[in-house]
């Protein structure tokens, strides 16, 4: 009796609304895909995404035609918007992997209904992120020079540079996210194959499901594989933003050269990522009537993660400033003084408001359970996290050691066009995904149902 732990049956705080059956879960999620009709919301969101995507194409063509000078890149601020956007997008991706991998390992069953679209978000955010360093190269058609391969120039990438580490980290992250997402989707593609009425979708989903038939032998290997993938994706996701932060910390620019950037960046990444998860989940569940599957509990949990990571970020800001003062390094002190009182002070204090002050409302339960307010809060956090990266990159580069070489950064309209263009690319890809693939993991939601439990062990 002593070594038998008592399991207290916690009242399951609505991870899934009562009254669902295996059939109704399947029908509700697959009906989003297997229909000819779309809600106005989808048409509007996809339309906006498509228009902004054209803006991206236009600005990319102009960039290739004229060169990176069409952006506001002038010495000494040569990183500007491109790298700000890169870091912002890749950070947003991190929440998807956190939900799909880390929460799987921690056995958090509430993740089951939000992991699929969060992983899709990761994939598309990484795609947007990956565009920026390539566009920023000036000669993007030579992007393959970043990889080591036998070549007639007899040169190789510098493996001692964080920028090359970044290439490996981000391309590994993109590949692993794609694999994890696809493997997670195979059983659901089988469901769609079996439920599609018309021959062409049946055929396409059939090819993508690879002949999945739900065999117990397959499930056993499959579960091992998802656990192993989650186990490997967990250190990977933490390493990716760490490596991104090395791009800054390894440099000696004041404001960049500090050892606590890795955890600070990872926390910020998850912070902005959960904000994006909320910004996507809240309109999606309203438009498709999925409140029974993505419940208020999910929103509340995501808001709590946002609050926790927001506090870590707030701590990082305070420590960053304290260490700048405490280091006694006049250049560090000057860099932070410039941030707070210099030409970028407006942005700095606005980011403090967005990232530190505004999320404090999440302490209140009423706020966490009101989707509209939560949506607004997550948009504010997304803006704040973008400003944070802008601040780190631009204000440090604009005013470093020698005042005679100081110069401010002014974004051009093409900076903005490219940035909004990638938001368009993200929306375009994301809503295409919502239209064509199951946005909630059907088989994992089935396991949440009470009738999925094997009740009696009676032998016949």
């Amino acid at each position, binding site marked *: 009796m002593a070594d038998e732990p008592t399991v207290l049956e916690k009242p399951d705080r609505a991870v899934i609304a009562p009254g669902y059956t295996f059939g109704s879960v399947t029908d509700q999620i697959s009906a989003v895909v297997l229909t000819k009709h779309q809600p106005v919301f989808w048409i509007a969101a996809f339309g906006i995404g498509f228009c902004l995507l054209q803006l991206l194409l236009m600005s990319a063509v102009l960039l290739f035609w004229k060169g990176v000078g069409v952006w506001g890149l002038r010495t000494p601020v040569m990183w500007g918007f491109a790298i700000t956007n890169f870091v912002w997008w890749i950070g947003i991706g991190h929440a998807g992997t956190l939900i799909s991998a880390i929460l799987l390992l921690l056995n958090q069953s509430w993740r089951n209904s939000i992991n699929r679209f969060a992983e899709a978000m990761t994939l598309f955010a990484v795609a947007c992120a990956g565009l920026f360093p390539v566009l920023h190269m000036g000669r993007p058609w030579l992007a393959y020079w970043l990889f080591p391969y036998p070549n007639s120039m007899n040169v190789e*990438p510098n*493996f001692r540079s964080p920028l090359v580490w970044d290439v490996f980290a981000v391309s590994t992250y993109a590949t692993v996210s794609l694999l994890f997402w696809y493997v997670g989707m195979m059983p659901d593609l089988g469901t769609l194959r079996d439920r599609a009425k018309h021959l062409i979708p049946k055929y396409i989903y059939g090819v993508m499901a690879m*002949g999945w038939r739900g065999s117990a032998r397959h499930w056993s290997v499959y579960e091992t594989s998802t656990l192993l993938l989650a186990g490997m994706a967990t250190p990977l996701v933490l390493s990716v933003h760490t490596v991104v932060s090395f791009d800054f910390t390894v440099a000696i620019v004041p404001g960049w050269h500090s050892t606590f950037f890795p955890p600070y960046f990872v926390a910020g990444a998850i912070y902005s990522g959960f904000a994006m998860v909320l910004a996507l989940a809240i309109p999606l569940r309203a438009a498709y009537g999925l409140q029974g599957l993505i419940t208020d509990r999910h929103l509340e949990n995501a808001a709590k993660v946002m609050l926790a990571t927001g506090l870590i970020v707030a701590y990082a800001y305070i420590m960053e400033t304290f260490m700048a003062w405490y280091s006694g390094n006049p250049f560090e002190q000057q860099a932070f003084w410039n941030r707070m009182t210099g030409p970028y002070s407006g942005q700095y204090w606005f980011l403090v408001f967005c990232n530190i002050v505004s999320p404090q409302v999440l302490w209140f339960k009423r706020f966490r359970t009101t989707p509209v307010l939560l949506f607004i809060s997550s948009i504010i956090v997304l803006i704040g996290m973008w400003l944070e990266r802008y601040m780190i990159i631009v204000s440090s580069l604009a005013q470093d050691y020698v005042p005679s070489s100081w110069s401010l950064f002014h974004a051009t309209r093409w900076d903005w066009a490219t940035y909004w263009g990638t938001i368009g690319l993200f929306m375009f890809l994301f809503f295409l995904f919502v239209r064509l693939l199951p946005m909630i993991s059907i088989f994992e939601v089935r*396991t949440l149902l009470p009738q999925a439990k094997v009740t009696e062990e009676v032998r016949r």
Partner: protein
Amino acid sequence: MSSPAVYGVMAEFDNPTSLVNAARAAREKGFRKLDAYTPFPIEELHEVLHLHKNKLPLIVLIGGILGGLTGYLLQYYVTVIYFPINIGGRPLHSWPSYIIITFELTILFGCISAVLGMMALNGLPMPYHPVFNVPRFSAASRDRFFLCIEATDPLFDLEKTSGFLETLEPTEVSEVAH
């Protein structure tokens, strides 16, 4: 003995508990060539069908080690042998700066081998499988649970095995054509 005309016999259940009980009964009866088909993974079924061990962790371990070696040796070869650059007399074999790419390639190769290994062990992609000939089988990806005793089992006999499955209170028993 088994007739080659059928792939096996399949019983359909409408809840996971009946399926697990049926699978246990079939194991106890001596059947070994049997498989269950379910819309989601059922932990108890793995126990009943003795499916707890598979080779995937070993495959992933080998893949990960290969990835790590590839990453490290690639960087060693490039920075020490193929393209050595003397920067202020610093050592060419600068292992601390190799760690990140070694780590990333370990994860990359490990993940790729997890996915390819899973597909290989499961025999996927498989464009055709006899179980799909059962008209009701499409419900296996929705809300029904199936147990199939295959004709290759030494104890298999079309009449008797069907009769045995009927005793397990399924909603339906059907033959699986090849």
